[in-house]
């Protein structure tokens, strides 16, 4: 594997006395699309927040290009799971996306065009002047994704971004994100509790178990790209990965 761009080094997090994450460690390679699966409550969001520099682990650390991530940095963009609370309700759709451009000090002149381009990519070009509270949940999440892309991060951290979308929109966005990230050679850490989504999108899948959150298995996904909603999902190896990883999710979800 190439020199990692990002790494978790024995990250342990406790809330009070409860251990949430226990010595979680793995690397993320440049341009890799890494998916993180695990049962609900196993600490996926917590791990992503450590990655983004929003919380500091009690032990271990997250490293970006060999340096510890102690504070949020513009090089890491995070798409939050609870999109409805992560958008600024007083800013329009366009204004929310522009926020990231303002934050990274993009020249004023090019901002409108860039916002338009990004809204086109996520299919919200017609809703640029609406306020977030006037949009459906799925649309709000797409605004958040556009905002993260506008940040031009080195690593895109996404927390169950498609969790609340209907199946059709979800598949369309999966393909869109996969295509975009590969075209832009974007490094991605993608959290989901949907195993098939993880296999479909990932170059590798990291499976976590719960209580406390630990890495149980890391699977290399050797499925050809570009992937296809029909043929990829029917690929014998897809089914093989699914079988292999299913146990970790099912076992813990039942508890």
């Amino acid at each position, binding site marked *: 594997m190439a020199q990692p761009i990002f790494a978790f080094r024995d990250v342990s997090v406790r809330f009070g006395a409860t251990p949430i994450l226990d010595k979680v460690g793995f690397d993320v390679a440049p341009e890799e699309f890494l998916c993180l699966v695990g049962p609900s409550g196993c600490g996926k969001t917590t791990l992503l927040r450590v990655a983004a520099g929003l919380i500091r682990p009690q032990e271990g650390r997250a490293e970006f290009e060999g340096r510890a991530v102690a504070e949020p940095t513009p090089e890491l963009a995070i798409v*939050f799971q609870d999109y409805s609370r*992560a958008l*600024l*309700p*007083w*800013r329009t759709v366009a204004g929310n996306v522009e926020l*990231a451009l303002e934050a*990274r000090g993009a020249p004023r002149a090019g901002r409108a065009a860039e916002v338009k381009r990004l809204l086109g990519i996520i299919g919200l070009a017609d809703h640029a002047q609406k306020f977030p*509270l*006037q949009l459906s949940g799925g649309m709000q999440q797409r605004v958040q994704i556009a905002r993260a892309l506008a940040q031009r991060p080195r690593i895109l951290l996404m927390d169950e971004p498609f969790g609340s979308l209907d199946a059709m929109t979800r598949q369309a966005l999966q393909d869109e994100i996969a295509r975009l990230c590969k075209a832009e050679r974007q490094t991605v850490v993608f959290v989901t509790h949907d195993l098939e989504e993880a296999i479909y999108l990932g170059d590798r899948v990291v499976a976590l178990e719960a209580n406390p959150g630990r890495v149980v298995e890391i699977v290399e996904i050797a499925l050809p790209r570009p992937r296809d909603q029909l043929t990829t999902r029917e690929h014998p190896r897809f089914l093989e990965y699914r079988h292999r990883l299913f146990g970790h999710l099912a076992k813990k979800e039942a508890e």
Partner: protein
Amino acid sequence: MTLRRLLLGLVFPVALLAAWEVSVRAGLLSEDVFSRISRIVPALLEGLADGTIVARTYETLAAALFGWAIAAAIGIPLGLVLGLVRPLERLTLVTIEALRPVPSAALIPIVLLIFGFSLELDATVAAFACLWPVLIVTTGAVRGIEPRLLEVGRALGYGALARIWHFALPAALPGIAVGLRVAFGIAIVVAVTVEIAANPRGLGYAMITAQQSLRAEVMYAYLFWIGLVGWLINVAMIRAERHWLRWYWAARGAA
């Protein structure tokens, strides 16, 4: 529909005024104390025509506005800080709760010593009275801000001050706006009170002069006028709120 509602809203006041007129004419109420509508309305029109009411209104409103602006300039920043920094709020709570019940009129003798009979006397006492609603409402609004929003600010790399300006202040604005509107009503009431009690200027003093020269109809003309002005200002402020905080109202189906 709105016209109908307006007419319905007028039924009760018109009936009351008619009853007033009839009672005075029938000798049930003393005309020296109560005057009557058929005298009050001409007195009001006359005062408006010769410019005296306008001049007195200007004096009172200028003082009220000044006091209100001072209260806003102190109350909003202080409320922001107290709302964001919990320990500070606990530290100042006792002081604030001890000062708050002090009747604003109790300040008149002190402020009189400092400023004499002047606009500043009205304004200072009004400022003291409106500081509390602005401060308390702002503190509460800031405390109620969605924490995720401030985290989005952190994740985008905004510093603490920028987060207050770009995130905390706009998020708290709908609450602050209500505080400011209530405070302006209080500012007018207090300014008039100070004028009635001590300060020889403005609408309050005009009222007390009319009373002392036994011109009850002029006194009532001022009373009605104060009510009308207060009502108009409130309506204008509600309109401004709906305009400036479109995002807030749009989501609540009242854009």
